């Protein structure tokens, strides 16, 4: 964008400025209610509708897409902590549930050291605190990093939010819609007069 690309004047539009300076943005004949108040109300509706729709919509999809309920754990080799603090609980690998074991293996293999517990979390309390697990000769500090809890709100929030957004968009578009309406009725009236 540069002033080097001088635009050609468009005679179909009103001038933004005249010899005396800028043309005022809002003329006296204009409805302030429809030009500013209605769009403002519209934006408020959109801004309120977005969280409603997001939360309501998420509830609908979270189960079907499997977005909740399975906690994720990390497994970090204890060596990286320069020796484990004595206060950290030791958890024998034999006490891990099959799901926990799978998650531990997944975390050990993962470049991000993360795994998802897809099933019974028998040692929830210990893993929430963080525990040292010796597995296949190596010691890991294993901890739940996210519980991935399920959201519990009314799914009806989704349609309410969606309606609020739609009505809000209509509110934001009120000034141009009003102008179109005015033009439309003007044409109709002119046609009838002719």
């Amino acid at each position, binding site marked *: *964008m*540069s*002033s080097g*690309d*001088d*635009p*050609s*004047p*468009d*005679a179909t*539009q*009103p*001038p*933004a*400025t*005249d010899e005396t*300076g*800028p043309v*005022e*943005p*809002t003329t006296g*004949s*204009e409805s302030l209610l429809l030009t*500013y108040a209605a*769009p*403002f109300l519209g*934006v408020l509706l*959109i*801004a*309120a509708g*977005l*969280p409603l729709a*997001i*939360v309501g919509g998420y509830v609908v999809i979270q189960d079907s897409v499997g*977005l909740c309920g399975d906690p994720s754990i990390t497994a970090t080799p204890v060596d990286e902590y320069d020796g484990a603090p004595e206060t950290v609980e030791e958890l024998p690998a034999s006490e891990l549930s099959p799901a926990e074991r799978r998650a531990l293996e997944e975390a050990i293999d993962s*470049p*991000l050291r993360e795994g998802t517990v897809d099933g019974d979390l028998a040692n929830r309390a210990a893993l929430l605190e963080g525990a040292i697990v010796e597995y296949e000769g190596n010691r890991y500090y294993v901890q739940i*990093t*996210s*519980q*991935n*809890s*399920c*959201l519990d709100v009314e799914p*009806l*929030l989704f*349609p*309410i939010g969606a309606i609020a957004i739609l009505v809000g968009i209509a509110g934001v578009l009120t*000034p141009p819609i009003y*102008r179109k*309406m*005015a033009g*439309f*009725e*003007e044409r*109709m*009236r002119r*046609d*009838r*007069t002719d």
Partner: protein
Amino acid sequence: MNRALVEVSLFGAVIVGCLLVVGFAQRLRAEPSPDGGYATDRERRLGLGDAKAAAVRWTTTTNHREIGLLYIAFGTVAAIWGGIDAMMIRTHLLTPEANLWTEQTYNELFTMHGLTMLIFFVTPVFFGIGNYFLPLLIGADDMAFPRLNAIGFWLLPPSLLLARLGIVAEVTGAVLAVIVPNDWISVLLAFQEPAIGWTMYPPLSLAPNPQTNFLLLGLHLSGIATTIGAINFITTIIYERDESIGWANLDIFSWNMLITSAIVIFAFPLLGTALLMLLFDRNFGTTFFAVEGGGPILWQHLLWFWGHPEVYIIFLPATGLMSLILPKFVGRKLFGFKFIVYSTIAIGVLSFGVWAHHMFVTGVDPRVRASFMATSIAIAVPSAIKVFNWITTMWNGDVRLAAPTILCVGSIGLFIVGGVTGIFLAVIPVDVIYHGTYYVVGHFHLILMGIIPLMMFAASYYWYPLLTGRMYDRRLAIFQSVLLVVGSALTFMTLMALGFLELPRRYATYPAGFSGLQIVATVGAFIIGISVLMWLYNMIWSYFQGTPIETADPWELKATEQFTPEWQWFEDRLERKRGVPPSEPDSVRPSYVPAQDERPLSIYGRIEPVARTVASDAGVGATGGFIGTLLMSGALLAAVVLGVFDLESIATLATLVGLPSNLALGYGLFLIAGTAVWPLLFLSLGEYLPGELTLVTGLWYATVIASGFAIGFYTGQTGLELVTYLLFVVLAHWIYGLGLAGTIASLGGRQRRPSTGEGGNE
């Protein structure tokens, strides 16, 4: 949910939206006008050769204005990216638990939001504005070192890419994983955006995430770029000024850029050094910030020795813009120019003496704390001098309604709240209580959002005619400015309230009792987001479709002797490029005000057309009613599907006329009523409802009758079901009203009454 894919999708949606606006605006512009059209210079299609030429031109340019535009474009992209982070943070905080994103994702989001906004958005945009306008303001041909200037900019894109390589690698890995075995791309999958907080405090920043190394390198590179830019600004201002411009009449924005650049020179090399030390700690076993070496507190000292001056690096250019722009829209020269310059210099010096107030709670020596408390409070004095001078500049001024005015006044208000709350934080006992709470988040966002981006927006509007030769949509700009101020106040004042309630910051979860205020803050944040998108739309659309300006003085600056050098440059350029200014139109009539007939009507004349219309155009009304009822049925059907509207209520409608309760019969009656009864009432009573247009009257009419429907068809819904039911009732009636009135208007069944006595109908 996968954060990376969501973020990239949102980013892509914004970019695609921008491209669509560009395409649509260009297409409209290429279409000839009904009167035969005017030749435009943009009709030719862009070929491969043109694209190549443009790419070469924009990547090799050393022109200060073009580099300035590149800086601004880069900063805007970063702002959108960081803004999406912010929206995702606020979305996460809608619920007390970590439901929508995980805790890890939340930590990544607030880390990268902070760094992206501070490093890659604000400084580049101000450097862009400086690059474009500073040489024009001081009468220089270009920046002192044009090639160095280009290098300074071109270091930024790779630095942003390095800093945010985590998300790029993650998305690339996710896409490649569809066709390539995971083992081959395990390197990509190992990257993860750092979740260590933007302050990168050790020992957390020593955690083994390879992306942290790239982040540090990216930040270091951006620091080099910033330092190069600062050297260029200082040299340009000192050596490239026009002979007529001395220190006494150097414009206030250039003064601010000079002081900002001086701070950069002292602050950023230190950041670079500290970043390298952290990199060495991470990769080469040094112990600068390990407990057995310098300790984590050393990092805090070094970071904040850069970090607090950085606050002023991004704040001072905003105050420079305020001091430059505000006088233009209030018709008075800047009050106390000299004192504003002195205050800027004072801030520049003092900014290096306040860093330890960020560390009051780390247990530094009480005497050190006390001295930093004193300097931190002292720095409020030059800031306050600026505020008082801005207010005095407005005093008795001819304040003009324009987007920059709203942004300036709004900024002053927000900055006062942000600044005063900062003084409290400078006081040790208050800081000890509030340091770890949302109070701090609210305080610094009132400044970081309340004045810095607002002044960027103000500058974009103020100089838009100069940049593009066209005027932006001023109504939309005023609306957008108000939204931005309201959204900022709502969001960050709410965060202050959360802070007063002592809600700790930085946590992904919070007690459920705070959810109400968190939702309010999120709604405010979405208002900010919407307003930013409106600004983006206005800038792009107006570039192609804005009204061409007809004078180099669009803001009447000559009238108040404020026609500053950049506008004089623009005036020369307009004269050289365009020659004779375009002629004025004879008269101007807004296209959205419906023309009205001149014949005044008597009372009889007002009622008679209504009666005649009802009698003669009953068919039109019935048609409208039928169409409206069918459309309304669709909306009600959606409500039935959602389970908030009971069809039984329609079925029982038949019993009102003595028929058995039956759905088909009930709907038949419903259709008849919607076709015959309600349109007739509309045609009779619509005259007495508000609205110049039939369609608006139709909406009012529908709103009125919706209340009766809501009561008549209510079947015991409660709670959210009741809310949804009412929403659908109103929506269905609006659809009915639009269908009814739209059909009547198009078929000419209803004539407007003369609302003001100056119009009427035959």
